[in-house]
């Protein structure tokens, strides 16, 4: 039992390092001047894309758990959710610092006029609510309401994809890939599909045993 929890700890640490690594990599690129003529935008776009990838990773954990019955996937769910939020916050900071140059009037205008900014801000606000209620204390306090609250992550996914769609200018290839993955992850949550996935997971376990 002690051995297993040490494994889990190592796994959690590995996930932590893997989620942190891109930020270090991009920072390094900026530091050595390899991020192009607009390093702020480079960070902005990478962090935004990173947040979306992390969100999709987070949402893949439940189907993966059903399929593999491996506990490891469920123990990193909160961590990946928090990483998603963290990337989102950094993405927002890049926008405020490097795109707006901390011009608050421009921020006010964007928040009134630009649908993709509004949608992005809304997604981040929901993620904030999920992040602050992700600890044990909040779970106990919220009781039965915790689960429906955290289902709002699906709304976040939709908002983030919309936010991305509205900044596309000439080519939808990249967006389509993310949208397809998102759609697949949602389909895997349809009760009958989810049940089949669990059954498949059970059979695989049986075969392995």
């Amino acid at each position, binding site marked *: 039992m002690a051995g297993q929890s040490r494994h889990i700890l190592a796994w959690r640490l590995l996930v932590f390092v893997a989620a942190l690594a891109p930020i270090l990599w991009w920072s390094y690129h900026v530091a050595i001047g390899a991020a192009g*003529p*607009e390093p*702020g935008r480079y960070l902005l776009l990478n962090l935004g894309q990173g947040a979306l990838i992390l969100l999709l990773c987070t949402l893949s954990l439940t189907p993966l758990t059903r399929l593999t019955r491996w506990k490891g996937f469920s123990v990193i769910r909160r961590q990946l959710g928090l990483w998603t939020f963290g990337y989102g916050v950094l993405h927002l900071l890049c926008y405020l610092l490097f795109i707006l140059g901390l011009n608050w009037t421009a921020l006010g205008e*964007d928040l009134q006029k630009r649908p993709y900014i509004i949608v992005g801000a809304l997604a981040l606000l929901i993620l904030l609510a999920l992040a602050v209620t992700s600890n044990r204390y909040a779970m106990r306090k919220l009781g039965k309401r915790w689960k429906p609250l955290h289902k709002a992550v699906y709304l976040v996914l939709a908002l983030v994809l919309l936010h991305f769609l509205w900044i596309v200018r000439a*080519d939808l*290839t990249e967006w389509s890939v993310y949208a397809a993955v998102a759609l697949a992850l949602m389909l895997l949550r349809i009760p009958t599909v989810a049940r089949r996935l669990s059954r498949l997971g059970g059979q695989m376990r049986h075969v392995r045993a």
Partner: protein
Amino acid sequence: MLIRSRHRLSLGENDVTPESIYLSRRKFMSGVVGLGLAASLPRAALAGPDYEDVTKAKGPEWFEAQLADTRWNAITAEDKVTPFDDATHYNNFYEFGSDKSDPARYAGQLKTVPWTVAVDGEVGKPGQYALEDLITPSRFEERIYRLRCVEAWSMVIPWLGIPLADVIKRAEPTGKAKYVRFETLEDPKQMPGQASRFGLIDWPYREGLRMDEAMHPLAFLAVGMYGRVLPNQNGAPLRLVVPWKYGFKSIKSIVRVSLVESQPETSWHMLAPNEYGFYANVNPEVDHPRWSQATERRLPNSLFNPNVIDTLPFNGYAEEVAGLYQGMDLRKFY
């Protein structure tokens, strides 16, 4: 010749000013105004400018021959010229992909020699012209122009080429010619972005100008930049440069110039008419629906200095071009 404006636009005088006077003037100027301005002043009378860290490249023979007789600094800007590496590795050229680094990565395979340009429509001398035949009757000029992208960033580029008006005049437009329509090469084998299945642009890329805009002395056809032949990712071997309009008007790798009677369809306008107008004059007062056009990020910038500056009407060329649009509602004709 152009009307001189005291502030932002100055004509190079190295053809007429004796070198000693010019040198002392330069010394005086750099002492007073500092590095930013000095960098844009005329450098050498004959040898051409010496921009830092430019990747050398040899153009076709006709290009190199023409280069020797260039009017350097024919038009300059007070702004500091963008480093060559940034101007060549941060491009919107969707024919090669939608990422800004895609053009530098994939444009190398474009074959630019030989290059033929079709000149047709309402002209007395239609035909398929070899690029050199189109260009060499005019003397090369170097023009340092600000380039304002519709995405709210900007650069300052020293172009090499000839006035667009020269080419149009030589084609002998008929009385019916009211607009000029341009077309980029369409060849998905050489241009991987055109092969994308989720691309939104209807190829070939198309642009257009009203006749008086096209004949304006600032409208320019570039075949080179930074004292060398155009890199492929910047629109080799022939591109338009219209400095008072958003960058997407300055169509690249041109294969057809048509003089036409009615306003031509243009690519971005076809894709999103509410976002991109036919005129696309730089205008801080008319926002793009998705972002403000009031300011721009002058590149390169850094994390500590986003370099956000005010966008000027007509990209700072209002004195020269505002007259073209007198009486027009620029909110309507954006």
